């Protein structure tokens, strides 16, 4: 499930008054090591005072004159990915979590960095699958059709066994880079696990197939370390509905990922490289493409 800000937010925060001095707040900071303080006046939040503000402001200044932090209010159910987008896009320093107009928590850059670090694959620097679930939900809510390309590296087990895991890791890194370079901006790539990658696209099946074929060709044309021949198999799911997908997004995305992964395995077995899976795929409704 996609993590929400309520699961990670700072609940034990200190509110300061607009007229309190920087010196006074610095003492609180030294005691509690809080990253930022909501600044209020007559019960309303008027700004955010960050630890950086405290460092650079004269100790005599009032909070209202030291605060430079931009902020925005969000609800506790906001996904952590959305919070991350807001902080980056809007250049915010912190997010105020409000429930029924009441301040219930704080989200800071540092906090989100630590949380999202858990969703980044250390080898390839790609996000893990949680990233795809969030963006799929966003696209579906915006009324887009979605499709998934599931990719795995052919004979990766043998590469690891015969050439060693170091070479295997290098190949994984390079494949990740090739995929990143060759994907349109509006798609979302993640390392799904092992030698598997998943790509979420907002495209219909035809465009999705073209992208998959482009990726397979790009990897085939690349020279890998020790001249190891590397090729990919890909499976595609989704990208066929012209009506809005309704219901919970999580099972929909899980289902599409599953169909695409089965299609990719089938492509690998049949040496066809690209396979389009459909709902009811198990019944054998499928189409093969050679790259």
């Amino acid at each position, binding site marked *: 499930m996609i993590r929400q800000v309520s699961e990670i937010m700072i609940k034990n925060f200190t509110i300061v008054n607009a007229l309190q001095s920087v010196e006074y707040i610095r003492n609180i900071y030294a005691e509690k090591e809080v990253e930022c303080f909501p600044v209020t006046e007559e019960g309303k939040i008027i700004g955010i005072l960050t630890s950086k503000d405290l460092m650079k402001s*004269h*100790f*005599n*200044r*009032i909070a*209202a*004159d030291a605060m430079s932090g931009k902020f925005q209010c969000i609800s506790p159910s906001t996904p952590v990915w959305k919070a991350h987008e807001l902080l980056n896009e809007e250049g915010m320093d912190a997010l105020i979590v409000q429930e029924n107009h009441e301040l219930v928590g704080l989200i800071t850059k540092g906090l989100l960095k630590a949380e999202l670090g858990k969703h980044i694959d250390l080898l390839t620097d790609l996000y893990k699958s949680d990233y795809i679930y969030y963006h799929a939900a966003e696209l579906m809510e915006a009324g887009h059709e979605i499709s998934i390309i599931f990719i795995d590296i052919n004979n990766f087990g043998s590469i690891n066994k015969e050439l060693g895991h170091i070479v295997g890791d290098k190949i994984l890194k390079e494949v990740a880079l090739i995929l990143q370079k060759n994907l349109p901006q509006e798609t979302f790539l993640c390392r799904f696990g092992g030698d598997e990658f998943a790509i979420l696209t907002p495209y219909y099946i035809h465009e999705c197939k073209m992208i998959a074929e482009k990726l397979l060709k790009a990897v085939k044309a690349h020279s890998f370390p020790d001249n190891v021949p590397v090729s990919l198999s890909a499976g595609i799911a989704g990208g066929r509905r012209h009506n809005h997908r309704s219901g919970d997004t999580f099972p929909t995305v899980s289902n599409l990922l599953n169909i695409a992964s089965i299609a990719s395995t089938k492509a690998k077995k049949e040496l066809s490289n690209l396979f389009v899976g459909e709902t009811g795929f198990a019944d054998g409704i499928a189409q093969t493409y050679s790259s």
Partner: protein
Amino acid sequence: MEIQVENKKKAEITMRLSEFEMPPMQDVLLVGKRAPIGPEATRRMVDILSPEQYEIIKVDHTVIEAIVVRKSLLHMLQQEKLIDLILEEGGKIANESMIIKAQIHVVLHVSKSIDL
């Protein structure tokens, strides 16, 4: 024989009395970016001491954060021209941690000719 030590303490007091300048900020205040008093505190101080007489203008300058200007000056001169002038002269002597007060006298010279 007992020695007697005499301790004496004296305090000299000097007083200087003068009238409190009203308003204390005169015509213009230049508030440095790291001055002990920021624009918001200045606004509150000015609003209490001389309500509705001053305007606070935040400026984009390397060391000056804001300028507090007596509104009557803005009736006589265009804001942009006045601010440019203040920043040009004030910017030469101000630094980030200073608050500088300035007196500005505006004299309008008008010369007209009429047909006799």
